[in-house]
């Protein structure tokens, strides 16, 4: 019987620690335990056998760190260690052998430098070797990053037929080292359809109880628990754990009663712990916990559950009708998207829609990059919005957590393309009530399409909880009599047991005072049972409707959020008085130059707006921004101001630039295009970002390639944009080498760009070593260099 069948009817017992046992057998501290598979196979086999004798149904192979990173320098290949490890586990006579795979040991982007595809390849190598050696399942364990687990699970699913168990390690604060919580783990891994999920290592069984409760109440698959033998302490220089086998087994009994299906031990546990556990749980009936009936989406660290009330999906990252966003997408300027994401989150969005569809760009690549960049800055779940199935699939692979797909519709073609993706990656999917015949006029017609989508999804194993139906809004100015059909449709569709969503703003198209119509329509939708809406959280009217409804439906407990936002609320008339007073500031408050020099951000913003009435952008830049910055730069160089003051002034200019950009199509001052990048292997980019801000202040257009940038990316950007100046930064002595490689690659490719380098470990002497043209000691110096290269010396 395969292991998946087995856990349908019976609890499964795993073994306990291997490392602990090997240390007892003489393994050196810091040595690779996996090497014992080859150098001391009898020791490993004897430990496996002790666990079998103790009653373990599954033996995990001694292959936790057997990946190409960790084995480097060990003298053995991944195949050798895994083949020997799995073979030893099988020899033990256990019912099942689990291929054991731990984290790769490097953090994934954006926290670290490990790329998804690289992680996937490393896991694939281990998995293929493990399956070939005869493992019955794979156990990914002691994981911290959901995205890394996702790479592992996909590598298993796409390259082997091994059943997949995945467990993560949580700290005292209930989160993993990278911030993942048990709910997001359960939601994401259930979505990815692992065969079991759970927790191992980290803490003792008593401390893990809250984590186990959360996993069980949000998991759709059997839950696995392998705690340590309590908390570690150092006794006589050795790590010891603080609970006995008896105590351990009592806790494990409680955990079995909670409904955990798979039990075992981690650090500090021995065959005794397993055998006592087996005895302790023998009379606990195997009752499987009730499966969660919830619509949940998450990022790698935060979950939003739709069943708790109404959910706001921010709509602003969508180029349709937005000139500025279109420009930014064409220029691949993701900083702007990230800014939009942050401001929507701050305004109160629960989920963010992300749409990068523009005919002239590579949508799949852009959406994927946007997902990565936004997830690096904002922990809200995302809704991947595209009509292109390929773009959806590429982006969903990069996505950390369980996203929403926007959208599928009732057309056979759409369902055939999108539903398999939603099923495979475990996404919630928005279903639009339209099909080959368009949008039905009646509520009943839309209900029928919803039913069709739900049935088609079920065929792919997608439960109702993972479907959100959009009953679609028609425009009041064009089809007024049909508007109310949407509200009726919501009521009908809700009876099917699915959640609903609406993009409301379409209703007011062509009419004045659109926010009024939008917010009243939204309220009507809520009244009919609408669960979520795709709206603009920056709209005051929309937020009023949302916040008010959250009080009325008992979602905003004690109206805390409502009071926070509206305690000082004034009726319309007095509001305009306030804004009139605000716009009344005059230039007598000090002129723009001194506002910049003093680093007064708001004042610089307001004064720029004021000046713009009488001056054009170029003259404001040349007569105010630059001279003021020159003064500050000069003082910085002389040491009469220090870095934070320089940055305050730069921020002041930035806010002034914000005003100029709002009022003109062109960005910046057109002084010239500069590439900036923190080189491969290095992720310390704060210095580079300061340089970027200052260069932009001076009117340069900066193409920011980010951090850990491979040589070829710099070369491509330099050639594509006919770049005259490239700025490279490195903070580590070890990454100065990448800087040198990047310079060499640029020259080899025939780029004529001048190269300026900077970073903490550099000095003038390095310029020659890396082959650069200039050393930018600080941001001010780099501006001077840019001025020289572009001939803007004044």
């Amino acid at each position, binding site marked *: 019987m395969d292991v998946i069948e087995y856990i349908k009817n019976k609890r499964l017992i795993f073994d306990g620690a291997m490392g602990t046992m090997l240390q007892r057998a003489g393994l050196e501290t810091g040595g690779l335990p996996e090497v014992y598979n080859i150098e001391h196979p009898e020791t490993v086999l004897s430990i496996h056998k002790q666990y079998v004798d103790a009653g373990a149904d599954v033996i995990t192979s001694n292959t936790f760190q057997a990946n190409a990173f960790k084995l480097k320098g060990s003298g053995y290949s991944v195949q050798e260690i895994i083949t020997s490890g799995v073979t030893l586990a099988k020899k033990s006579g256990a019912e099942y052998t689990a291929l054991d795979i731990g984290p790769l040991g490097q953090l994934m982007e954006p*926290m*670290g430098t490990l790329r998804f595809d690289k992680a996937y390849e490393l896991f694939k190598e281990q998995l293929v070797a493990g399956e070939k050696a005869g493992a019955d399942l794979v156990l990914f364990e002691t994981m911290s990053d959901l995205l890394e687990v996702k790479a592992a699970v996909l590598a298993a699913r796409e390259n082997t037929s091994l059943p997949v168990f995945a467990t993560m390690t949580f700290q005292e*604060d209930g989160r993993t080292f990278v911030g993942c919580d048990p709910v997001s783990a359960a939601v994401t891994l259930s979505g990815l359809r692992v065969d079991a999920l759970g927790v191992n290592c980290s803490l003792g069984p008593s401390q893990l109880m809250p984590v186990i409760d959360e996993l069980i109440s949000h998991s759709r698959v059997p839950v696995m628990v392998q705690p340590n033998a309590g908390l570690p302490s150092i006794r006589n220089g050795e790590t010891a754990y603080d609970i006995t086998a008896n105590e351990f087994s009592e806790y494990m009994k409680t955990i079995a009663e909670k409904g955990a299906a798979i039990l075992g031990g981690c650090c500090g546990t021995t065959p005794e712990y397993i055998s006592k556990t087996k005895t302790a749980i023998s009379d606990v009936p195997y009752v499987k916990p009730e499966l969660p009936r919830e619509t949940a989406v998450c990022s790698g660290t935060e979950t939003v559950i739709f069943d708790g009330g109404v959910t706001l999906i921010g709509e602003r990252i969508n180029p349709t009708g937005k000139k500025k966003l279109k420009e930014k997408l064409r220029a691949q300027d993701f900083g702007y998207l990230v800014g939009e994401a942050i401001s929507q989150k701050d305004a109160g969005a629960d989920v963010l829609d992300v749409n990068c569809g523009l005919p002239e760009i590579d949508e799949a690549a852009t959406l994927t990059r946007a997902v990565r960049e936004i997830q690096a800055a904002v922990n809200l779940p995302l809704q991947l919005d595209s009509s292109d199935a390929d773009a959806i699939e590429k982006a969903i692979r990069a996505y950390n957590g369980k996203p929403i797909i926007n959208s599928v519709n009732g057309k056979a073609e759409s369902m055939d393309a999108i539903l398999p993706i939603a099923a495979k990656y475990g996404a919630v999917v928005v279903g639009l009530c339209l099909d080959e015949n368009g949008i039905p006029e009646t509520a009943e017609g839309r209900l029928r399409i919803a039913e069709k989508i739900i049935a088609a999804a079920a065929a792919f194993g997608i439960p109702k909880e993972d479907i959100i139906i959009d009953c679609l809004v028609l425009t009041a100015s064009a089809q007024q009599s049909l508007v109310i059909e949407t509200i009726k449709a919501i009521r009908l569709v809700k009876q099917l047991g699915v959640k609903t969503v609406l993009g409301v703003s379409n209703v007011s198209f062509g009419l004045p005072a659109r926010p009024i119509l939008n917010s009243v329509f939204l309220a009507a939708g809520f009244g009919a049972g609408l669960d979520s809406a795709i709206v603009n959280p920056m709209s005051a009217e929309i937020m009023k409707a949302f916040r008010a409804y959250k009080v009325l439906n008992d979602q905003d407990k004690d109206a805390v959020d409502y009071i926070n936002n509206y305690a000082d609320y004034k009726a319309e008339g007095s509001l305009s008085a306030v804004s009139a007073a605000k716009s009344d500031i005059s230039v007598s408050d000090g002129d723009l130059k001194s506002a910049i020099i003093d*680093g007064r951000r708001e004042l610089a913003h307001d004064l720029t707006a004021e000046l713009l009435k009488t001056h054009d952008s170029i003259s404001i830049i040349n007569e105010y921004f630059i001279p003021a910055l020159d003064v500050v730069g000069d003082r910085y160089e002389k040491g009469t101001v220090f870095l934070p003051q320089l940055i*305050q002034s730069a921020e002041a200019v930035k806010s002034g630039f914000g005003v100029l950009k709002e009022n003109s199509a062109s960005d910046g001052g057109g002084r010239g295009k500069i590439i900036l990048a923190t080189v491969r*292997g290095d992720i310390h980019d704060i210095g580079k970002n300061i340089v970027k801000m200052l260069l932009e202040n001076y009117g340069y257009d900066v193409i920011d390639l980010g951090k850990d940038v491979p040589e070829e990316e710099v070369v491509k950007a330099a050639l594509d944009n006919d770049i005259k100046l490239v700025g490279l930064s490195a903070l580590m*002595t*070890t990454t100065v080498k*990448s800087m040198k490689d990047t310079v060499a690659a640029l020259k080899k490719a025939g780029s004529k760009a001048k190269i300026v380098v900077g970073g903490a*470990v550099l000095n003038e002497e390095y310029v020659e070593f890396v082959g650069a043209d200039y050393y930018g000691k600080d941001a001010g110096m780099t501006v001077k260099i840019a001025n020289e290269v572009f001939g803007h010396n004044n």
Partner: protein
Amino acid sequence: MNGIDLDKSEILRYLGHKNQAVNGDIMKTIDVCADDILKTARYRYIYKIFDIKMGFRKGESCIELSGTNISLLGNDIYEHLRDCKKCALMAATLGIEADNMIRVAQNTDMLRAVVLDACAADFIEKVCDLAEREIKQKAEEEGYETSFRFSPGYGDLPLETQRDLLNLLDAGRKIGLTLTDSSLMIPGKSVTAIIGFTKNYSAPVKKSGCDICSLRDTCKFRKAGSTCGRN
């Protein structure tokens, strides 16, 4: 939390402050950032104490850590531990939350990002102090004095030693501290160090930090006529 307070004058020093007038906005930003990083960062540290002996590898003297197959290479660490019987390896980190906070701030407010970065720099020093006090106490219980903290990359102790230290401490699993291929520690606000235990605290151990520091030619503190404070 846990009695850690940040030191505003240190934070200013990390920001390159010497004697310039500091405006109220900056002081306020420092207060807010210090508070935020103290609340958000989840600092952790671990250490392990090893018996050591003087050895010889690749034609040079080195320090061997008993019960491991690891040796510490280079003249400076040899000098540092020459009179020691034991040493403690320690690793400390502010956790990924500090990195995330600084990264996010760079999208919206560079002043905040830079100040957070400086606060984090002071914070991790304070965490190291905490670990060091604990280690010192252990040493004193056994009748030893301790040396100052010596880190990989310092003097001629190769930066690559970082990998051995983190492996010996099982730092990935214990405190979530990892290393990239270019020996970059992530989370970024992390420190590893070696502290010697001696009954015979002699001159070389007390040698000024800058004299043997490999960063002495490019150090931003030295350029500004100051030091990083580790001497």
